[in-house]
């Protein structure tokens, strides 16, 4: 171990890296989460960490930030070696984490949140003016015009994220860890975030960037380190990586067909027919049809109406005008009645709208299917167990422990449980809102295959997603939202990433829908 530490020392003349971890091991109750892992961050570098859920990314971050104590290994920060770090020490050494869920206080101002714990003093205690000035200076360095006197509760998610980053700069953090910062952002906001990250890099800071979005990893980061099952796989400059080689490194095998094959023409009457659907202030005169066996993608920026459409289809948004028909019948106005009519919607926000935390996998899986489990008046435990076993196998939920609290599952497996809840009722029309957000690559591919199987079985599928690659890979047709209106309807054969993004970002010159395909 000593040898490893000394051999890791920087050669004379070469500056020590900002951060170097060697031989890190960490187990939880005897199960290794990290095995002999190394990692290095240079100053002025964006270093992505990639790996499937459960690869050990979060554990590593928590070790760097002092939240976990490693069982073995050395942490070197600017040449100074430690075997353990406390959160306090890590902060003092200039390590800051921007978490997925923000730790901001909603009823304090931007400036107060940025300097929390170290509020600038004035003549009598805290000086709001000095805090505001200093916050404005930091935000300016980040290229933001955000007003530091605004309350955090009024900010968008993207702005809150900026405040978190600002707080890291207020501490003059040299090592800034961003844990999946892009999952909460739409494409415009993402561009802003990337700009901020590049500015931090220019200032000579080291940024550890964790993301499930491979295009982002390849486009933004200078180097990428891949973990798999708690083990270090490789560290390479991103210029030497492609999508495919990165996926191969992450899952340890080739994904020959990441997306299931979708070919073959279908013509039938639409199973889901939406005509002139309007939700006040959100979507206007939306018309589309999905035929049995067809997968239609819905593209668009955040706030363009994708999610509103999905919610309105099952009655979770006010339908001011227009009709929705399922196989010719008018769609009911509550999620419950829609499910009975064969239309289900799997919501975007798994944590807030999907899972029941603190309840078992089985509870979460069967909650929408209880009426099918009854014999006489009561739920039949054998029938319930049969459904749970079947669904766990069909949707490949791991671990296969029906009593496990749902929150102990990985994001991908939680998503499979939520999908299983809806799809085990064999719906005819399936609406999926961001079905693979925060889901690792392996689980993504499995979810695609599942959706494909339901489509092949004759279901009509509508997928709203901000991941254009996903839509291109999955869908027979892609419709595009722009500011609450459908502006394009593009068949698979003519769809390109560029064309979709252009339609989503540029207002159409012709008013009304551009109908490319019938």
């Amino acid at each position, binding site marked *: 171990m000593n040898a490893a530490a000394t051999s890791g020392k920087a050669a004379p003349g070469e500056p020590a890296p900002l951060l170097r971890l060697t031989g890190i091991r960490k187990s939880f109750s005897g199960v290794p989460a990290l095995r002999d892992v190394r990692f290095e961050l240079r100053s002025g570098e964006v270093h992505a960490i990639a790996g499937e859920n459960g690869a050990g990314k979060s554990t590593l971050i928590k070790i760097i930030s002092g939240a976990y104590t490693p069982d073995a290994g050395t942490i070197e920060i600017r040449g100074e070696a430690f075997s353990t770090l406390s959160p306090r020490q890590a902060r003092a050494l200039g390590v800051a984490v921007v978490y997925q869920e923000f730790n901001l206080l909603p009823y304090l101002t931007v400036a107060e949140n940025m300097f929390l714990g170290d509020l600038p003093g004035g003549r009598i205690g805290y000086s709001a003016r000095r805090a505001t000035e200093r916050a404005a200076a930091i935000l300016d360095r980040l290229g933001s015009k955000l007003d530091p006197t605004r309350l955090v509760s009024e900010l968008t998610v993207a702005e809150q994220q900026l405040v978190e980053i600002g707080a890291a700069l207020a501490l003059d953090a040299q090592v800034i860890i961003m844990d999946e910062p892009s999952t909460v952002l739409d494409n415009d906001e993402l561009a802003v975030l990337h700009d901020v990250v590049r500015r931090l890099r220019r200032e000579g800071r080291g940024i550890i960037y964790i993301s499930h979005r491979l295009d982002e990893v390849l486009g933004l980061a200078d180097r990428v380190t891949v973990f798999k099952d708690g083990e270090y796989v490789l560290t390479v400059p991103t210029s030497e990586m492609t999508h495919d080689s990165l996926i191969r490194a992450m899952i340890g095998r080739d994904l020959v067909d990441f997306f299931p094959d979708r070919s073959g023409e279908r013509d039938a009457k639409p199973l889901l027919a939406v005509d002139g659907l309007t939700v006040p202030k959100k979507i206007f005169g939306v018309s589309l049809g999905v035929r049995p066996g067809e997968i239609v993608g819905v593209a668009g920026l955040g706030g363009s109406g994708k999610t509103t459409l999905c919610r309105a289809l099952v009655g979770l948004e006010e339908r001011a005008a227009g009709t929705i028909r399922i196989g010719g019948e008018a769609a009911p106005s509550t999620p419950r009645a829609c*499910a009975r009519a064969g239309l289900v919607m799997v919501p975007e926000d798994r944590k807030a709208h999907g899972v*029941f935390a*603190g309840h078992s996998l089985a509870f979460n899986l069967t909650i*929408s299917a209880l009426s099918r489990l009854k014999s006489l008046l009561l739920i039949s435990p054998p029938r319930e167990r049969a459904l749970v076993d079947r669904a766990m196998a069909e949707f490949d939920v791991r671990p296969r422990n029906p009593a496990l609290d749902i929150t102990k599952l990985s994001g991908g497996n939680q998503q499979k449980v939520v999908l299983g809840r809806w799809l085990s009722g064999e719906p005819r029309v399936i609406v999926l809102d961001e079905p693979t957000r925060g889901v690792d690559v392996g689980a993504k591919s499995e979810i695609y295959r599942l959706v494909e199987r339901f489509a092949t079985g004759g279901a009509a599928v509508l997928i709203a997603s901000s991941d254009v690659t996903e839509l291109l890979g999955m869908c027979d047709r892609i419709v595009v939202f722009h500011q609450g209106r459908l502006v394009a309807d593009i068949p698979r054969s003519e769809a390109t990433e560029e064309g979709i993004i252009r339609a989503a970002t540029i207002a159409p010159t012709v008013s009304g829908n551009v109908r490319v395909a019938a």
Partner: protein
Amino acid sequence: MSESIALDRAAASSRATTLRARVLDWLSQYAAFGAIVVTLLVAAVMAPAFFSPGNIRAVLIQTAILGIVVLGQTVALIARGLDMSVSATMTFAAVLVGESASSGNFGLLAAQLAILVVCVGLANGLLVTWRQVPPFVATFALLIVVDGARLAYTHGQSANSAPEWLAQIGSGSLAGVPIPVLIWLALLAILFVALALTSWGRWLYAVGSNRESARHAGIPVNAVVMSTFFVTALAAMGAGVLQAGYVGYIDNTLGANYGLNSMAAAIIGGVAFTGGRGGVIGSAMGALLLTILVNLLVVMGLDLFWQRIVQGAVLVIAVVIQGLRSRAEQS
């Protein structure tokens, strides 16, 4: 092959890491049971009079009456609600029964009791679902309104004796077991099964755990929340009638402490204030523990004020265990 071993290991580890959480979970569900045993041991040493047949009988009947209110309160708490107005409903129901002693009109009494339950349940339910008033505020308002309505109805006249038939139920026995206890145990069994094995029961937990997820999952959230207030009102009405029969007379303070005590009992029994967890067995234990403690203090000849302190202390301990539990689960 190796994959299945890895899966088994993962399952084993998840079991191990949740052990602490499980112990605390178990503790918060059944701590009341342990506390009951300890209290009985203390009683055996310090106050043998506690174990006199008459006293045991009194404790059981008082537990049963509190226990019935607690059943309703448990349902409300699981769905992340609560009902402060149970004490008013209890007293009003008792007053109506007292009046029927003179009129002897059963049909009228049944109608009056039904109207009381429907009005209170509907008012609480509509305020909480339709107007989105927090349950604490809505039911606290109803507590005052129903108490006021009773006083207006009786012109403040309180003391009334219970009708003979009711006194026989309230203090009678079947096969040596007091009738109120039998009624309580029957309701307990029904609710236990309803919570575990009906859609309604599962929906209560789902609504209490995450209301938005419940809405998306196709659960009729408003109907479920509404139902909880009918259950609390119904339970309170039943308990009020039984209490009148057991005590034999009706006065203005008949239901007085049942609002807070029923919530305390449920919380002590492991029902979470934050909704979504707990059950009727635990909260029944909570009711038994509270009743035994109060009775023991009386038997030991301690000042009445000590009761409140002890009840409060027990509640604090229960809440602390729950707090530790949710912390352990999050780590």
